[in-house]
């Protein structure tokens, strides 16, 4: 059974890579993921904002801690403040590297030169095998054009590429007007892969407190289809590793992605829900499917249903929308 996959120049024993999530925070859990078959692991994200707010927070704590009341000159045992988020992250890379056999991919979530370049360099030096840049930015400013936004990312990536020698992949949101073009630009700027797609926390409104609050809904299998379409479209058109992420819950989801052209498939929500053991179940499912399939290796199957390989590429494009809608029969009772 040949499940070998290639991602960012790394040879992986299979295509299942747990994506950036809290699961990698704990060394034991990370080891379990490896034991249950993970072929690499993406660490939880290091947020640029978290580093900034940590700094602000430390500044404030250092001053507000001192309270000036005779019974409580301060609060909280300050010794616990030692060590920064960044230091801990770097240390965690080292620990994961020393206790895992599989590659460790560091994940960086930021939008500024400081955030990407300085920290990216440190992550590489700490031993990460690759770097995933998490593009997590809602383009809320109507004065910034899509082109400007894209140019900003490209510039940052180019800077980073110059200072780190490990492969860089970019995790994208689906909200780019011409995704293929943007991905090509990323490739030109030095990216070795892209990962499709990022999921945003969605704001929600609390009608009691009259506040807007973020909510987190774990992904569902239905969520895979958006990423699958774009993997299908990009496969063979770019010389980049392609990772599928968002909504891969079953072996079937994973196989679909590979058929569409993904080099690897990330898993996250399903592991958060069912634990690391579930990884083995998905992996076994992929093996069984490959057994029953006409292919000898996953590499053979990879991308056979991509846009370029399709007899009917319209399935990935707008035409399929019309077909679908005309075939959709609403539940009439709900209209009454």
């Amino acid at each position, binding site marked *: 059974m040949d499940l070998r996959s290639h991602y960012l120049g790394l040879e992986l024993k299979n295509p299942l890579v747990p994506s950036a999530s809290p699961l990698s925070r704990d060394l034991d859990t990370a080891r379990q993921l490896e034991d249950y078959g993970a072929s690499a692991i993406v660490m939880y994200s290091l947020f640029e904002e978290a580093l900034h707010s940590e700094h602000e927070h430390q500044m404030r704590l250092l001053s507000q801690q001192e309270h*000036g009341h005779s019974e409580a000159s301060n609060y909280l045992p300050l010794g616990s403040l030692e060590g920064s988020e960044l230091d801990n992250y770097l240390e965690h890379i080292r620990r994961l590297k020393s206790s895992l056999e599989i590659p460790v991919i560091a994940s960086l979530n930021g939008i500024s030169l400081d955030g990407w370049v300085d920290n990216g360099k440190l992550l590489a030096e700490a031993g990460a095998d690759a770097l995933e840049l998490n593009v997590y930015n809602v383009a809320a400013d109507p004065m910034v054009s899509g082109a400007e936004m894209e140019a900003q990312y490209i510039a940052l990536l180019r800077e980073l590429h110059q200072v780190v020698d490990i492969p860089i992949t970019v995790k994208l949101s689906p909200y780019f007007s011409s995704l293929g073009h943007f991905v090509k630009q990323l490739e030109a700027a030095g990216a070795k892969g892209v990962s499709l797609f990022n999921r945003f926390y969605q704001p929600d409104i609390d009608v009691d407190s009259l506040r807007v609050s973020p909510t*987190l809904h774990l992904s569902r299998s239905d969520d895979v289809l958006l990423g699958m379409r774009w993997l299908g479209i990009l496969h063979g058109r770019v010389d980049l590793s392609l990772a599928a992420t968002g909504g891969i819950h079953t072996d079937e989801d994973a196989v679909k992605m590979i058929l569409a052209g993904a080099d690897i498939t990330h898993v996250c929500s399903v592991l958060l829900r069912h634990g690391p053991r579930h990884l083995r179940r998905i992996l076994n499912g992929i093996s069984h499917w490959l057994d029953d399939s006409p292919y000898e290796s996953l590499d053979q199957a990879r991308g056979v249903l991509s846009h370029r390989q399709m007899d009917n590429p319209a399935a990935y494009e707008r035409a399929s929308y019309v077909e679908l809608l005309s075939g959709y029969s609403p539940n009439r009772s709900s209209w009454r």
Partner: protein
Amino acid sequence: MSAKMISLDGNEAAAHIAHLTNEVIAIYPITPASPMGEYADTWTAEGRKNLWGSVPQVIELQSEGGAAGTIHGALQSGALSTTFTASQGLLLMLPNMYKIAGELTPTVFHIAARSLACQGLSIFCDHSDVMSARATGFAMLASNSVQEVMDTALIAQAATLASRIPVLHFFDGFRTSHEVAKIEQVSDEVVRAMIDDELVSAHRRRAMNPERPVLRGTSQNPDVYFQARESVNPLYEAMPAIVQACMDRFAELTGRQYHLYDYFGAEDAERVIVLMGSGVDTSREVVEHLTAHGEKVGVLAVRLYRPLDPTALLAALPATTRSIAVLDRTKEPGADGEPLYKDLIAAVAQDAATGQGRFGQMPRIIGGRYGLSSKEFTPGMVKAVFDELGKDQPKHGFTIGINDDLTHSSLDWDAGFRPDCTQQTVNALFYGLGADGTVSANKNSIKIIGEATELHAQGYFVYDSKKSGAVTVSHLRFGPQPIRSAYLIGPDEAQFVACHQGSFIERYDMLDNACDGATFLLNSTAGPEQAWETLPRAMQQQIIDKKLKFYVIDAYQVAEQSGMGRRINTIMQTCFFAISGILPKEQAIAAIKDAAQKTYGAKGEKLVQMNFLAIDNSLANLHQVSVPERASSDFERPALVPSQAPAFVQEVTARIIAGQGDLLAVSQLPNDGTWPTATSQWEKRNISLEIPVWDEELCIHCGKCPLVCPHGVIRSKVFDPALTKDAPPTFKHVPVKGKEFPEGWHISYQVAPEDCTGCTLCVDICPVKDKKNPGRRAINMAAQPPLREAEKLNWDFFLSLPEYDRSRIRPTVIKEAMIAQPLFEFSGACTGCGETPYLKLASQLFGDRMMIANATGCSSIYGGNLPTTPWATDPNGRGPTWNNSLFEDNAEFGLGMRVAVDKQAELARELLEALRPELGDGLVNDLLDADQSDEAGIYEQRQRVTTLQEKLPGIDRPEAKQLSEITDMLTHKSVWIVGGDGWAYDIGFGGLDHVLASGRNVNILVLDTEVYSNTGGQTSKATPRGAVAKFSAGGKPTPKKDLAMIAMSYENVYVAQVAYGAKDIQTLKTFIEAESFDGPSIIIAYSPCIAWGNDMKYNHEMQNMAIRSGHWSLFRYDPRRRLQGENPLQLDSKAPSQGYRDFVQNETRFSMLWSKHPEDAEHFLHESQFEARARFHHYEQLAAIHFDKPEDDQDTPEEQ
């Protein structure tokens, strides 16, 4: 062995030895001993090992009683064990201390001595607590300075192991426990050499062990108890020699020789003072001075107070002694002398009775009291005592340090007297804001100077009684010799005075303490050219007269430029070093930078660089002001209290506010602890640079801002606009929205400009957004100074408008409930406090009939710490009546109030019946059957009571007179039992549980901050799993106790959880339902606290996240609903909709664990998330159970 010099305080010195020489440490927070437990817990969390290479176990208990019990058990089971406490905590340990001593168990309890609560609580120092323990059988060893604390802690440990007699090691709270001093550290080698492992083994061999079972704790009878009690005598007789042997051994190892009774002074002294504690050092200074001037005086320091060794004590006194003053730092009302005095009298008398006494002539012995509640004990006072001893008829039973104009016990003293040795020290005073880092910078300066030079250093810090805008005054001394001045820097003594907040120049006479030619440093936004003009005239004159060097810096601007935000401490510290001349400037600056590197290095390079930049910028922005020859200012410091304040406030309160409480005479103070309420209104603190401003055009009159305001500074009132014809020109009022108000009436939302603390929570809660100006709301912050004068007038006018008729308010509607006058206002609570809105709400709803039992804690401090109280009165003079008994007994205290009220009401009703013929059926029936369930009903009953009071004097029966004294009891009284989680979940839980079970009509309000807030944020059983708090430096490993579930198990208790910032209407309904329930009710109120480490401007959002994540649920359990066939439990919050991770990552108390122990943090997070979900699900299931209306009791015949 070469000694290492270190700078630390007395608590750390004691904890250092205790942690090094013990295996089990049981702790419980109490001021001023809490830091000892905190140090021990932190060191254990860091893995610091004891003498035997093992990390001591530190365990927090639910009370000091619990800690003592645990120590008893641990000692009986062979572990070396210790604890730390003070004051009421020590009292709670007494029962166990008798047991521990009775069983001859070696241990040392370290006590930061503190006053006991009598007419008032005091956290400050005297010996009334340790004196209460003198009969327990513990030996008692006193330390008089920080150095002695570390030394004696070790001597005590060695002596207890050798003697088997437990030791109470005490030192003066604050003065010694919190004084930072440069001392010689006792090395681990010395500790090792002092502790005999064979004695440790002997302790272990005596332990309980099923391999060699014994029986202890027997019940003994008249036949043997007495003899057994006397069987310990040989050990007590041996103890003094053992202690002295340990002192001698210690001297061999360190060169510091102590004796059981150390005498200092002239060998041929005639006048001697005998005392214990920090006063010894001050007395030594004076003795040295006086003997150098030829006087025959001396001082005897009592170190071993129990068992007292009279022979050694008398041997230490010069045989020439003619008169002795024994100073006790305690008071025993009704006694003819305090304990140490009596011990000395007995010793001298016994000695004289032998016929071969130490003294040729029986000396004259007088006793006196000093230093109660940290009253200053200065050289002038010591000299006054010596002067008294020189008189023919010296006064016995004197007091020193106060003006007793009532019984004339006090001695006069010269406040300006200073011994010669004080000429050698450089004295520096720093006035800072509690939160501006002044104290930590000064502690840092002491370390810098201590390490960089041979100079000795001392730092003592005086704090405010307020928690918001608190002022700290740091007293620093530096000198070539060890500093023994255990008193504050006084008038004309300081060579350096720094004012870190410009606004203080309006409030304090700080230059009184400056000596001639001193340096004055002011943080001011006015530049060097303008700064002079900002000073009050008297201050200018002082600068001219004393020829002060005057420097200014705009530290806030430098902080901003350096990326430090508003953190000015490094900047002011740099200025101190640059101009005080204590160290050469270059050396000083290098040392500060080195200190910044050490302090912030571990927290990131960015912080270090920022501090370096701030240091450099400080030097560039520090300017000397050229002082004119004449004062030019046209203003003086404003009066602290307005002239319309009541006489008591003018004469007493105002002087306390001004920092002159020490000058009040005995007769001016209430003798039974009774103080007037409604006094915080007179203490205008002006601590906020910004205040909210109402936008009357946008406002929808929802009432949310007055509801959330923690300090009661935003008020709403509805009134007839005809009353506004004389309103100040900028007074805002608009027609009130809503048909429920009289037509044409207006509403005003008014801010008290001088009382606002600037928390911004009113702006945060405002639901109205200005669609034309995004970011603006119907209430917005604006700079206070330009608004202050106009808004003062508006505020006074607002107060002069009549209150709206309470009986016409629908209390369940927020905008209407908020029109009611708050009878809780302008407390000293922290800015953004999460507790006070609940108290204010209760006071608005029920204030005119509230009786409050308040557990010790934050709410008792901001509620009852002098000089003023926020509990206020309505225009009829009614308002909450408030009392604080103790920490542990509050539920029972409140229950007592209920029982008393009910009993008197019962008596009143019986008397009404008895007087029915005279009063008439109508009035009696109306009074007896009154429905007082709403405001109108209470109003009518009060009218009836007034009628009754008018009629009673005309009735010539004893019952009429009896009834006239208790007619008030015929109106409803709302009893509230208020306290924090430390009380309700821990120390007071037993009583709380009993009160819940009592069925009595009390309202219990638990202000749940999830830590012991008042004592500095120690873990309670309300602390959630994974939260970092003191005593849980590694994150609390166990979950929060579900107090509500326990209360619900009684089924006849009204139980609710609320969070006003998340769902105010549910909070409002809960308070009304709880109060109306005729039985026990308990409201557990989520109260975000500064101790959580977050900026309190996010208070409401923190409440919301707690609910969205499932950490906190809102519900009400109303037993009355069962009678209606409804499920008593109503769940008022939705299922968790947000990850628990988001909740914990937003709160410092949780998130800080990730930076140190990420895996533990992750582990706690998962468990907490699971528990939160499960708990909500459990409540959901309980709330979904179907209830049937109970069927009528078949046995009860229906009425025909």
